[in-house]
């Protein structure tokens, strides 16, 4: 095998002046424009800082450099060969050119190479619309191929993992997925096998791409080779509206985009946030867009007869309006209190509620004279080394900061016992399913004279409720969560609430009003303003300052 001949470098033309730079920086020129970059930065990264795009497939900022796609080849003065921008480090006085005829010609060549064995099945490919091959073909390609031969064939629709499908023909062997599994999850399921044009991604014998973060390989796949099974053929990506939000599946609160079309969230993908999740999210969180559409929703209020209370309206009678149902809820709680004393009332409040909902819960419960407030924990497994937290609630920290109390298993068990023994006669359940979760048995609720439940689906507890009020599901309303590191982050609405469902804060406000609660509480941001004004940890914060990246709460 030869070493290439090294031609004599061309004469250097006079250079524009370089800007001054610090000891850890170097000054260079990119397309004639002066740039100051950190020592050790790559040409590609330095170019990015001044808005110069160096096209690339295999480079990903969250992974090691592979340098295999060759799309980022640029011209660097005094270097006879083109250099890859992803691996070449900046140097003082370096002059990089990204738009010369030679660079453009090379990119055309790389595009042609990448496409000769690519099936060009864009019309049926889920990646179409967000495919680097498409994007770069349009921008850097020649628009035609000179390849007239039979393409190399590979297997398609390979179930490479439980949640990920692999198409060997679309793959461009950038190895992003391989590096992700090697470097991020360190599970190393994937490798390149075979050689030359027959090279292909595969799992090691006996392995499958089933790690808890496998969906990220789909996100970082620059082409349609890896697809997320639940999203396959679900929607064309150009119809999707991406709403920046956060995941609610655990206390991490990864930044995500909710991709909605026709009032359905079809996909959740991680949104880069170096303070929270970097580039990644777990597969579990990714799948939380389905229940809100697929689980049996509580779409309208339900009122059932309570012992000693007013008659129910389900079954024979006309369905109650939200207002009528709230009246019945307030009346049932009031009746139980008057018969057994306010001390027999209690509330089970979920750490899945937003800060705004918790705040209104606090206000309303105080107005109704309900002093016993329990936040049950939801833990599963262990914290992993990457993102997943065993605390499966998105706002446990927020509950503690608002004074509702941190999630407490003992308090939850004590409440359950008191409900079963009849010590508690009136219970308001906010976003919890104590029956479904096994905290209490349905029979144990028979002693209750008032069971008011606010939830988004027809849980076992909802089915036992005297009054059930439909709240918004995930992605239907906005609010703020505080994650495990004390970062306040906004969750947002990507779709309209189903049927009569309302944000829980709105339902709670209405119940509160029946007990004399004053205040407009017209919107989540307005409620948050009151939280910021009254709770020191949130002092000075607004939706605007939280923004899309979140903000650390005071003292966190």
């Amino acid at each position, binding site marked *: *095998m030869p070493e290439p001949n090294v031609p004599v470098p061309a004469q250097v033309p006079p250079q524009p002046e370089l800007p001054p730079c610090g000891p850890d920086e170097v000054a260079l020129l990119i397309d004639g424009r002066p740039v100051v970059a950190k020592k050790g930065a790559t040409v590609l990264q330095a170019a990015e800082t001044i808005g110069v795009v160096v096209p690339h497939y295999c480079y990903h900022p969250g992974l090691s*450099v592979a340098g*295999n796609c060759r799309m980022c080849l640029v011209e660097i003065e005094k270097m006879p060969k083109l250099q890859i921008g992803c691996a070449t480090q900046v140097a003082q006085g370096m002059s990089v050119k990204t738009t010369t005829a030679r660079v453009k010609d090379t990119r055309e060549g790389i595009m042609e190479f*990448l496409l000769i064995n690519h099936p060009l099945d864009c019309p049926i490919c889920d990646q179409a619309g967000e495919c680097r091959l498409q994007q770069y073909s349009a921008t850097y390609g020649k628009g035609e191929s000179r390849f007239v*031969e039979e393409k190399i064939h590979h297997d398609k629709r390979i179930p490479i993992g439980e949640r990920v499908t692999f198409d060997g023909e679309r793959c461009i*062997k950038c190895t992003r997925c391989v590096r992700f599994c090697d470097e991020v999850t360190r599970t190393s399921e994937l490798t390149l096998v075979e*050689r030359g044009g027959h090279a292909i991604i595969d799992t090691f014998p006996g392995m499958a791409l089933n790690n808890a973060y496998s969906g990220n390989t789909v996100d970082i796949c620059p082409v349609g080779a890896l697809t997320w099974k639940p999203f396959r053929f679900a929607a064309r990506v150009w119809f999707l509206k991406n709403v920046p939000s956060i995941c609610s599946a655990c206390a991490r609160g990864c930044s995500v985009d909710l991709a909605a079309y026709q009032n359905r969230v079809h996909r959740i993908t991680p949104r880069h946030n170096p303070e929270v999740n970097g580039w990644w999210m777990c597969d579990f969180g990714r799948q939380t867009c389905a229940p809100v559409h697929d689980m049996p929703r509580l779409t309208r209020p339900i009122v059932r007869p309570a012992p000693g209370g007013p008659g129910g309206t389900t079954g024979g009678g006309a369905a109650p309006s939200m207002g009528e149902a709230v009246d019945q809820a307030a009346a049932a709680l009031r009746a139980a209190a008057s018969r057994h004393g306010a001390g027999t009332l209690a509330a089970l409040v979920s750490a899945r509620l937003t800060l705004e909902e918790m705040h209104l819960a606090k206000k309303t419960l105080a107005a109704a004279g309900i002093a016993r407030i329990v936040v049950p924990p939801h833990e599963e497994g262990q914290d992993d080394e990457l993102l997943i937290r065993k605390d499966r609630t998105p706002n446990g920290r927020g509950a503690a900061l608002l004074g509702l109390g941190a999630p407490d298993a003992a308090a939850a068990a004590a409440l359950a016992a008191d409900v079963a023994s009849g010590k508690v006669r009136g219970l308001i359940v906010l976003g919890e399913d104590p029956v479904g979760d096994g905290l209490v048995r349905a029979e144990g609720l028979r002693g209750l004279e008032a069971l008011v439940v606010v939830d988004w689906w027809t849980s076992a507890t909802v089915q036992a409720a005297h009054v059930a009020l439909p709240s918004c599901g995930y992605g239907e309303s906005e609010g703020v969560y505080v994650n495990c590191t004390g970062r306040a982050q906004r969750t947002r609405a990507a779709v309209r609430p189903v049927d009569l469902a309302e944000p829980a804060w709105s339902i709670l406000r209405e119940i509160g009003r029946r007990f004399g609660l004053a205040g407009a509480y017209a919107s989540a941001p307005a409620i948050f303003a009151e939280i910021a004004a009254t709770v020191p940890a949130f002092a000075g914060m607004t939706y605007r300052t939280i923004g899309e990246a979140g903000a650390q709460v005071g003292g966190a």
Partner: protein
Amino acid sequence: MAYEKLLLRNIHRDDSHTIDVYLANGGYQALRRVLKEVSPDQMLEEVKTSGLRGRGGAGFPAGMKWSFLPKTRDKPRYLCVNADESEPGTFKDRLLIEKDPHLVLEGIILSAYAIDCHTAFFYIRGEFHKGYRIFQRAIDEAYAKGLLGKNILGSRYSLDVLTYRGAGAYICGEETALLESLEGKRGLPRLKPPFPAIVGLYGCPTIINNVETLANVPYIAERGGAWFAGIGRPKNTGPKLFCLSGHVKRPGVYEAPLGTPFMELLNEHAGGMLHPDRPLKAAVPGGSSMKVLPASRCDVLLDFDSLAAAGTSLGSAGGMVMDSSTCMVGALLNLAEFYAHESCGQCTPCREGTGWFVKILRRLETGEGRPEDPDLLLDVARRVEGNTICPFGEAVAWPVSSYVKEFRSEFDDHVTRKACPFGAASVR
């Protein structure tokens, strides 16, 4: 003055591969002396003085390469011997490994001593079963005689040599792919920089040398760098093994000084053309990865700089000779199939380009070529060359572009006649 054979001095002796025969003929005397009288730095200087250039293909001065090692000693240094000889038409290292393994081993020990390395790896091509057995036996013999291991020959210098067998990939002869393979991974070339002398095997400073390169070192140690530099031509010093195959009477490995005329190698060493009625048509003096020369330009000297001036390279000196019966399209197709099979598949231009060459050439050779195909070959070759991670890109682009350029009319003939004028015997 008759040329004194050095590298092939022992190969015709009975049992030349055994340590007894090697010792009986003066073997390991240079090592004995160096360990007693010469410091590592002096040994390195001697190699620098010799002007010894790497025999693996790149022709990089060995002493200079060694001096790129960092001066710090916070990590171990490794010497990797590249015995993954896989270039079509190159079979010189195999001869040394099988017939004079102790010459190679003495060179390894001396070189490791010069760079203060205490672990050397002998990466041998997987298909070299016999070579592996012989070399492993040579290592065992050397350990038994105190020539390897702790305190070699009573000195304070210790060295272990480990053999590692490749798994059958040509690319593992590329030095960084060799390192990956040696680390137990898929043999994919690494990005450079960093160069192996800085970040090599297991992240440690590493020198990789070809078998033949190291086989020269005992002579440099024995007779001095200045003596070595007197052999051959300026900047192209020392003895060289030249392989010759193809349409010659006596294909084989021949030793001659660098700078020997190619026609002398062909006519005097290899006995001339195989068939008297079929004259020389073309030759690749350096090996299959190098540019082809038409007969009219074969009057060249066989050394690094002369061949570079002639528009080709010495490479691994795996010369191939083609007579007038050769179809250049078919010959190139044969080569292209090899490179398409051996491309590691890592980077785009090589992975995709190598297969494309085959498809175009097969079409031409079977009479289905299009008028634009020769130009297409040149353009694809141009887009592969210089744009790949490792020199494999050139190894295929150079033959493709040179065969088409030098024998353009033959390619065009295939198109216009809609058939191979030579009968398409080479199409599989």
